[in-house]
């Protein structure tokens, strides 16, 4: 995990550990999101994989965007306005699943991240046994 949570502006509702993709974020992140949107096409994914720097340049990524991508720093990408729906396409190229991404962001190992999810499942089972939920 690189970077820390950096809420974009004052006076806004802050949800800890959560990046609300509002207009401010969308403005900061337009270039990186546009690049990620281009990854819907396989030829573009291959072009990125072949020469990341040239591809980022083509989409006018900011130095902040580039640095976060070079370092595979997901939190850095979010702080730079990346939106997870588009970043997920980049994650695919980098062969990162949602649980790899989850581990990267929460500073845990992938096994720990998966275990935490399974713990929610266990808790649900317990509640269901107690009849508190259907």
């Amino acid at each position: 995990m690189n970077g820390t949570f950096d809420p974009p502006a004052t006076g806004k509702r802050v949800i800890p550990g959560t990046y609300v993709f509002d207009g401010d974020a969308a403005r900061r992140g337009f270039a990186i999101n546009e690049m990620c949107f281009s990854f819907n096409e396989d030829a573009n994914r291959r072009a990125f994989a072949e020469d990341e720097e040239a591809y980022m340049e083509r989409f006018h990524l900011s130095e902040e965007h580039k640095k976060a991508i070079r370092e595979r720093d997901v939190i850095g990408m979010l702080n730079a306005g990346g939106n997870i729906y588009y970043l997920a396409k980049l994650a695919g190229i980098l062969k990162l699943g949602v649980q790899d991404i989850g581990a990267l962001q929460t500073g845990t190992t992938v096994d720990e991240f998966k275990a935490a999810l399974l713990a929610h499942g266990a808790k649900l089972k317990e509640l269901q046994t107690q009849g508190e939920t259907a």
Partner: protein
Amino acid sequence: MSTIAGGIFTSHVPGIGQAIAKGLKQDPYWKPFFDGWHTVHDWLKREKPDVLVCFYNDHGLNFFLDKLPTFAIGAADGYRHEDEGWGISGYKPYPGMPELSWHIIEQVVHDEFDPTMCQKMLVDHALAIPVEMAWPDEEESWPFKLVPIAINTVQYPLPSPKRCFEFGRSVGRALESWPGDEKIVVMGTGGLSHQLEGERAGHINIEYDTFCMDNLSRDPEALLQHSSLDIAELAGSQGVEILNWIAARGAMRGSVTELSRNYHIPISNTAAATMLLENHETVLA
């Protein structure tokens, strides 16, 4: 006269598609989720709906930030899924029903909604995967005609739960006034609680999910007490996809009963749920 037979509410996690492709339905990780579909399959075989009206959210296949609609209604002759960035495609194409799409558009604009009208539209996994789960045995083609309706869950400000519910009500009025004799099923996809990004990635909220499922059939307006940001806080940033459920539930304007419910954690990073609700014309006492 057309009838709205019921509604199917389900998660749409991309990994489900891969599990189907790999034949993992009986795998211990996946079985508890897929088992929740048996009642849906039986019901669909009995009801044989002609039309599917599906409320979902686009994840960056058909829409980008250059033109991001709050509500988008498909009005094409047909729809395709395409590569969303992970090299997965090849879902069967979906036949459209543009005459019903336009009937819905006329109604919602009359009711002071401001849709984006889409005569060409790609549909993403949020529609493709629920359809695969609901109709697993169709080899050649789908047995329904589709009207896809996309709700913005990507770019804040999102529409409020109340606005989505009222939008669904308006769509429901259009379905009720449709002069054809088709049987219609509505669908709402996404959720339940999950969050992919940030230090809170992996967030799940059993209590909020249970509140939503408990009230979906009998008192959906209970879900409107929260704002979209409230839901992001409660259910996680992708938990707001429940806006699609809320709109679909709004389209069911009769007497609604819950036929089945399945809730399982985890599927991928998600608290996954499948619910089947039946809709009957309200009989006056």
